[in-house]
């Protein structure tokens, strides 16, 4: 029975793989079916894991095992239920309270974390001694790093019309951005091709047994 089910599962995988690939020819019912099944499975998957990994250990088990010790958890539980009130038009306004708490907390966290990691630390990492490199290429690279970062920020932040000498840093900033976008394109090609390789490997190895 187990063997039969794994063979059935394999054929199911093949069916779904070809259903999605069929979109390359044109949109068709097989693709639409596979797409909706994917959406359904994905949503349910998330819900099940959420229940077992968050709601159960962090809320329900704590409340059931030691209600008095964890009575404070009733507050987020009530706030959570208020969030669900959004489904009913008349009680929609109740969801504003938990949403406000989440948005306010997220805004506070984003502010301090981005200020530290993406602003201050990045500025510190740019303020390096360019001559400290071991080889000529690293020294040149260090200069490029400093010039590119300053010119890039200049391009983004001095958005008034730039003419003459004031336009030069912007222009250099654009060049650096173009180089980065080119590199990103190269990496994107790599990423997308890898995904295709994965699916072809499945078809050739697990299904057709052409490769080991």
């Amino acid at each position, binding site marked *: 029975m187990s063997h039969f089910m794994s063979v059935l599962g394999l054929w199911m995988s093949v069916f779904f793989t070809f259903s999605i690939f069929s979109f390359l020819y044109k949109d068709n019912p097989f693709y639409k079916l596979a797409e909706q099944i994917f959406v359904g499975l994905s949503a349910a998957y998330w819900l099940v894991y959420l229940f077992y990994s968050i709601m159960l250990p962090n809320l329900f088990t704590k409340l059931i095992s030691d209600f008095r010790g964890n009575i404070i958890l009733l507050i987020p539980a009530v706030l959570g239920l208020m969030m669900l009130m959004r489904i009913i038009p008349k009680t929609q306004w109740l969801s504003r309270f938990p949403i406000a*708490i989440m948005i306010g*907390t997220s805004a506070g966290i984003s502010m301090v974390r981005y200020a530290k990691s993406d602003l201050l630390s990045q500025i510190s990492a740019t303020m390096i001694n360019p001559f400290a490199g071991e080889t000529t290429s690293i020294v040149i690279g260090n200069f490029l790093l400093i010039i590119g970062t300053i010119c890039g920020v200049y391009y983004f932040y001095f958005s008034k019309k730039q003419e003459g000498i004031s336009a030069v840093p912007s222009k250099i900033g654009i060049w650096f951005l173009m180089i980065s976008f080119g590199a990103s394109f190269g990496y994107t090609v790599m990423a997308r091709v890898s995904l295709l390789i994965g699916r072809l490997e499945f078809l050739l190895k697990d299904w057709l047994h052409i490769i080991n």
Partner: protein
Amino acid sequence: MKRNLPLFFAFFCGILVIVSEFIPHRPFSMLIDTLQNWFMIISGFAIILGQISLFQSNLSKIKQKESGWIFYLAGLLSFCLMLIVGLLWGTQETGGIFGHGLKLQASLGAKPFDYLFDFAYMPLSATMFSLLAFFIASAAYRAFIIRSFESNLLMITAVIVILGRTSFGGMLTAWVPESYKFWQLPNLSDFIMEFPNSAAQRAIMISAALGIIGSSLRIILGIERSYLGSDK
């Protein structure tokens, strides 16, 4: 109360997070710990809300027999199936309402939830995203055209990186003498990634961080309040 109290909550939580960053002691440390734990639980409910609203939207499309309703029905059925088997027999090491379903596991080779994950969810997800390989190949042929100095820069970098990140790229320039090894494609590609790319990405990062700090402040101070929705 319906608008001002939530705005006060957002202000209070935002300020609390910021203050606790600078004064990481009691009572702020205790308050922030509590807030973080609550946040995780409320986030869980927020995800449930999202799934319920997806369910509702599909249900209404089926009820109104919109075009393609049969596909939405399939989506809804697969949602129910995955949810039910997940809750009844659990997943991986976690048992469900009926425990681990050992008999079912013996006949399926895995828990029903994991079986559906392995043979339906995984191929669907992986194949869906592998389609992008075809579209990027098509884009390379149809849209990656040299038009200006900037597009030239973009193209040259892309070519170096595409070649440099393969085994073939290394072989192609393996003849370059050791003293000029900087010009070997993999090294050139690494140099681009480490310096010019880093510089540009860092500029984006710094600029985006300034933007995020600004918009966070607007939310905390109650200037940005669109997340509350309308009063109607």
